[in-house]
């Protein structure tokens, strides 16, 4: 086993573009193998998307506009008020920008995971199991939608505007915290996508429950935490740790106290929470695959 592992790794380094023969889900070096397989499938879908360029441009613009409407709604709210939950428009825009950018990244990378339920139902999931490529990589890259760049662009623009308008007291630590937050936030959302997909092995038709955590979580994190009831804030801090996507680090950057009164170092925990979430999601995914019974259709 150890020998095979070394061999597979050597091969991965020597010829990164080749798909190793018999590289199934149990093949050693699974992470490198998965990333490579993911890249191959994504490249294929991108070529197919680019075959219809007009359609791609239209849907990407649509994606941009659809997500932009959330922000237009917030701006319309601010035509009647000066502060929402004690936050000014640029501060809310900062929350909006960080949440949307992280969610956009996760949606681009893993957003296809919610198709799993359909694949289980119509039996095409079995085909993925038969291929000598890690299953998670195949599901994640399935129908990779490049148009989702629209959401990242829109979130990034709102974040950029917020940073220009806010007069923040930057320290080197805070400067580092911002990109770390965006990446850790994306990783937490990715973990939710994977865990949600694993849940679909049992629940079948329940893709919308996943949406309530992903899309719903994204919407919630666009608003100041002080708006929500304490139980809800506790839930998204300790149960599904969405508060680490942007709330806690953003409050530190904005210089605001957090409503739960947690110790200050918690604001820097996002990367660690992201790693933990990904590990747990990985375990859930394995358990899901093991429990999978084909519908036989």
């Amino acid at each position, binding site marked *: 086993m150890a020998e095979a592992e070394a061999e597979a790794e050597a091969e991965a380094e020597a010829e990164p573009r080749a798909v190793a023969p018999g590289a199934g889900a149990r093949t050693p070096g699974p992470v490198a193998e998965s990333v490579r397989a993911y890249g191959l499938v994504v490249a294929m879908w991108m070529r197919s998307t680019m075959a*219809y360029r007009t359609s791609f441009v*239209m849907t990407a613009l*649509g994606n941009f506009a659809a997500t932009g*409407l959330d922000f237009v709604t917030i701006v319309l*709210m601010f035509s009647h008020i000066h502060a929402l939950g004690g936050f000014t428009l640029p501060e809310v825009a900062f929350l909006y920008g960080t949440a949307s950018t992280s969610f956009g990244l996760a949606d681009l990378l893993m957003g296809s995971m919610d198709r799993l339920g359909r694949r289980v139902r119509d039996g095409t999931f079995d085909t993925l199991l038969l291929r000598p490529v890690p299953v998670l990589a195949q599901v994640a890259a399935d129908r990779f939608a490049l148009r989702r760049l629209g959401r990242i662009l829109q979130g990034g623009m709102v974040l950029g505007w917020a940073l220009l308008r806010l007069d923040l007291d930057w320290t080197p630590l805070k400067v580092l915290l911002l990109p770390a937050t965006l990446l850790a936030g994306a990783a937490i959302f990715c973990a939710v996508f994977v865990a949600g997909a694993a849940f679909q092995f049992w629940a079948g*038709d*329940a893709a*919308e429950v996943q949406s*309530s955590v992903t899309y719903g979580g994204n919407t919630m994190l666009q608003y100041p935490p002080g708006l929500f009831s304490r139980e809800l804030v506790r839930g998204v801090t300790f149960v599904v740790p969405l508060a680490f996507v942007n709330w806690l680090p953003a409050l530190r950057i904005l210089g605001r106290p957090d409503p739960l009164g947690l110790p200050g170092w918690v604001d820097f925990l996002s990367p660690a929470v992201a790693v933990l979430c990904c590990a747990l999601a990985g375990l859930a995914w394995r358990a899901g695959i093991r429990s999978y019974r084909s519908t036989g259709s």
Partner: protein
Amino acid sequence: MGGFYGAVVVRGFRRYATYRVATAAGVFTNTVFGLIISYSYIALWNQRPHLGGYTEAQALTYVWIGQGLLVTMALMGGGFEDELMERIRSGDIAVDLYRPADLQGWWLAADLGRAGFHLLGRGVLPLVCGALVFDLAVPSSALTWALFAVSVLLGVVVSFAVRFLVALCAFWLLDGTGVAQAAWITGLFFSGMTLPLNVFPGALGGIARALPWSALLQVPADVLLGQHRGTGALLALAFQAGWAAALLAAGRLLQAVATRRVVVQGG
């Protein structure tokens, strides 16, 4: 003939009723979104009581009516239009045109069945959940509820008529995905789903309230909230009926033009 279309309505209802787990999951999602939007509205109405002519309880009721009508009105797409566009693209539409049923009538009946199921399946429970968490301004008058039911029905017809026009674009574009997406984004915003239209500032509000999409959510919600009373309520229903008639007629005209374009590819 009425019996025939009635049967199509029933089949449309039953078709969606088979997805029970998906419906339960959808109720859960609507409830989560209802909670999130409710809290943001509470913050808004705390600072501006009576914003848009609503009390806080009315604003919160508006949120839960919105969640209840979101899928009923197909505000985020997902109705019959994808299927019709696919039939136009693949050429199966030629078979449909030979059938002894009217194209528009058939799809309207099927969509009424779908909307009916979603109103019961995904409309009632989120409203109940909302009422358990917040103080809602739900009317007790049976007449108001009856007017609301008529208003929802008219709203569904307007929603159908818009989506029928969108689907027919596939005769010219082949891939109607972009148009369908543009249509539901516009509809989502101008129906009042993201924010009540009477909170929209100035001229934007006036224009938004005159557009057909206000018939999908703003008008039914205002009828239930008692914003339109007496003749006002009848005028509101007439507004919806007017748009329904105009858009259905436009769809009929476009259908006549489009079907003359049908070329059945050989093989």
